[in-house]
């Protein structure tokens, strides 16, 4: 796993209180990890803080799995 993936995973584990081994690339935040819609907003805010990047609303809506987040941040984070 890349450095970005590790950091994303850590945030997801901390925020959603899920087992680390469940946070796999194709895990859907809502369907697989038990997040509610407010959790997904908070995850995006946490990613913004951790990676010092702004995630616009239209991009945030496309981030529905762990892999989506990793790919977006690898591409856009400094």
């Amino acid at each position, binding site marked *: 796993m890349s450095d970005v993936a590790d950091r994303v995973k850590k945030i997801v584990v901390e925020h959603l209180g899920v087992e680390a081994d469940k946070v796999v690339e194709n895990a859907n935040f809502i369907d697989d990890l038990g997040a*509610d819609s*407010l959790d997904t*907003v*908070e995850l995006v*805010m946490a990613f913004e803080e951790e990676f010092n990047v702004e995630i616009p609303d239209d991009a945030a809506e496309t981030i529905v799995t762990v892999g989506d987040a990793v790919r977006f941040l690898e591409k856009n984070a400094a």
Partner: protein
Amino acid sequence: MFDLTGRKALVTGATGGIGGSIARALHARGATVTLSGTRRAALDELASSLGERVHVVEANLADKDSVEALVPAAEAAMEGLDILVNNAGVTKDNLFMRMKDEEWDTVIAVNLTASFRLSRAAVKNMMRRRYGRIVNIGSVVGSTGNPGQGNYAASKAGLIGMTKALAAEVASRNITVNCVAPGFIESPMTDVLNEKQREGILGTIPMGRLGQGEEIASSVVYLASTEAAYVTGQTLHVNGGMAMF
């Protein structure tokens, strides 16, 4: 009870009769307060009478950019924001059939849309901190209607609906959103009433008098306190009994 020491509050319309009372009451309970309004001199005067733990941020809530800048400015000044009081409001009364679009638009913009934008901005960091209090100042006419106030009544009824929707969304994060709905309160807004209007109004108030700004402020203090943690999405009517729900 109702100790607000260490809490950080933003009050819009702080130069108004009710807004000034709210700012004073929150401050007296120990909160740091950011006063916002359009009249700089009046804001500074209130700030100097309060002394410490006070900041001033001028804002014109009819202007989108000014609204968007307000919460970040208050958060920067106080290093956080725990309590948002959307108090600022304007009236532009006219008979419905004569009401101009701009009279409608201005009242909706200041009373409702600005409250939406300020709440949207404030709730973000409240979510992070897992704590927050938003108190929207409505009006009895938001529930009863009032001739000549189609725009004002709509804006205040809108606040009640917005309060409930946002309250439901953020309740799990220990953020409460409530509304205080004043009846007729002694303020510049009611000073313009003539004697006949005043008498007519008093006849509809079982308590037989207008309310005082302090009587609204104490309700805001309650809803802003940790003691009111289980109260959310509610509208607290403070009106001397003129309308009961």
